[in-house]
């Protein structure tokens, strides 16, 4: 249930604005890949192109190639809806559906795609996904309560449960902990470590310690100057990036000498 992602010379534009330039990388299956870099350097924009969520923004377009196990996401006749079923996403701010209970939130991906499932299968899927997101023990007695009544950290884990309930190949996380306190962050980081055994996980973070803690490989994005497109400066094993980076800019950023 996890696949390899190849990115080839990807350029991303918002209208006339060149947002991200010439990104190429390989993301290995069953690994955690983290992207770090200053604000506005295109990390979030880039991660959204991995499941075509950038298309929600008017004027956004892409040149280049992103393949999942050899299939180009931007090929002709590829339906973005199919892409998003394979590549799930968790957002910066927890966003459970306010009209739905905890249970319905978990099952939302299945229900909204109008797949019929028996009560028993739904219960199983719900429990399995919530266990997968380390949330089951906290909410098992109140599955019918609204999801918006949970704490921020619990809501974020609910969103992760919702994302893995549709059994994607890849899980993208766009700063999943930036709205959370340290305890909830720790819970999510533990969860990411567990998810690694089943999914290919890609995470954007502003927290370099977090990248160092959870990821196997790290990519550093940067801008040459304001108004210039963001670029992938360096992409390597996390150990290497944090201990012995090749590029000066990476070293400066990691050691806090610029920002």
């Amino acid at each position, binding site marked *: 249930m996890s696949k390899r992602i190849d990115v080839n010379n990807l350029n991303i534009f918002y209208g006339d604005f060149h947002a991200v330039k010439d990104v190429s990388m390989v993301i290995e299956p069953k690994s955690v890949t983290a992207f770090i870099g200053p604000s506005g350097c295109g990390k979030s924009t880039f991660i959204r192109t991995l*499941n075509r*969520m950038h298309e*929600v923004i*008017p004027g956004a377009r892409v040149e280049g190639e992103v393949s999942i196990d050899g299939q180009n996401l931007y090929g002709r006749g590829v339906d973005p*809806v*199919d*892409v*998003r*079923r*394979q590549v*799930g*996403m968790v*957002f910066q*701010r927890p*966003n*459970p*559906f*306010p*009209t739905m209970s905890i249970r319905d939130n978990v099952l*939302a*991906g299945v*229900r*909204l*795609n*109008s797949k019929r499932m028996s009560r028993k299968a739904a219960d199983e899927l719900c429990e399995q996904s919530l266990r997968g997101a380390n949330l089951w023990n906290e909410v098992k007695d109140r599955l019918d*309560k*609204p999801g*918006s*009544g949970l704490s921020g950290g619990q809501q974020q884990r609910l*969103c992760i449960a*919702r*994302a893995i309930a*549709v059994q994607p190949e890849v899980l993208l996380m766009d700063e999943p902990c930036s709205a959370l306190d340290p305890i909830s962050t720790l819970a999510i980081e533990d969860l990411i470590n567990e998810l690694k055994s089943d999914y290919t996980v890609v995470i954007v973070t502003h927290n370099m310690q977090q990248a160092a803690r959870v990821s196997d490989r790290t990519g550093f994005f940067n801008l040459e100057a304001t108004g210039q497109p963001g670029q992938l400066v360096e992409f390597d094993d996390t150990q290497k990036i944090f201990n012995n980076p090749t590029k000066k800019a990476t070293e400066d950023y990691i050691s806090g000498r610029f920002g």
Partner: protein
Amino acid sequence: MSTPTRSPESDIHHSRMDDLSGIVPSPVRPTSDRPLLLIGLGAVAVWLVLWQVVGLHMVVGLVVGYLAFLLVSYLYYRAAGGQRVGLDIVVRWLVYAAFVCAVVPLISMLWTVIGQGLPLAFEWFFISTDMKGITGTHDQAYAAGEGPLVGGAGHAIIGTLIVTGLATVISVPIGMFTAIYLVEYGGKNALARGIRFLVDVMTGIPSIVAGLFAFALFTQIFGIRDAKMGLAGAVALSVLMIPTVVRNSEEMLRIVPNELREASLALGVPKWRTIAKVVLPTAASGLASGITLAIARVIGETAPLLVAIGFAREFNWNFLEGPMNTLAVYTYWMFTKPLSPAVIEPSQERAWAAALLLVILVVALNLLARFIAKIFAPKSGR
């Protein structure tokens, strides 16, 4: 000049600092409410004297008394508590006065309508019968005490419900789908901007023009003799209703957080399903109350219905043929064209009763809107 020489830069800097340090909140001393009460009593006394003794008009006296109250309490509290306390009192009482000015006409209207319409509006014969065969002689007999009051507004109640219901059935889908297009698909493109502009223009259409439009339209289709029908009235009302529905729904859809749409799309849900299953349910309470208020807005329309439907004396359940009646038109007709020009009281009684029924309908719709909003509101219980 003995000022020490300074560079202009530091001069500017210093003068700015002086300005800042000069901003000190004016001091406030504690005051009690008792003087305010005394000043208020004094103002009431001034009003009574001006009204009863001097012989000024009651309202003029009231205004003079109120202004005197404002002035005296300001002066007193400024002296006792400081500038801010004085201003606080004045502004607070200005706000109270504005509130009273806004509410008085409403209460007065309700009071009059209830007082004038109450006995008749709930009589069973008034709700259940129409005006078929009722003439001025019946009214004269009633006025002379020789017979009962006959004739009711049953046909007008039915007509109101049918015509407004039809208008809702026409307007809600059109308005909602327009709003969905504007928010979810159109964004800021030329078509969406054009639609928004036209909707704004439509909001300002005088209602009589809507009526003329519907009448002209149905005259083209059915000929001038048969053009007056319930459906024509419903079309006229929907011309007035659609812009309201579009605007309300657009606002409601717009406040649905984008994150929810993204969450749904990221689960691999197609866009139309995201709109149907996530956006609309999230906005449901606002949509429902907006629609109910749009209905309440057109249910009391008279002019377009006079033109497009005409005036019926008897029950007409068929909205595709012949004139109908509605409560607003019934009220208007009874008031301006009493059955017996010599004895107008019975007709006026009917007009008041119909007006009361209309007010009750509108209030009921507003309460319904609140109720619906509560039912659909996203729950956040723990």
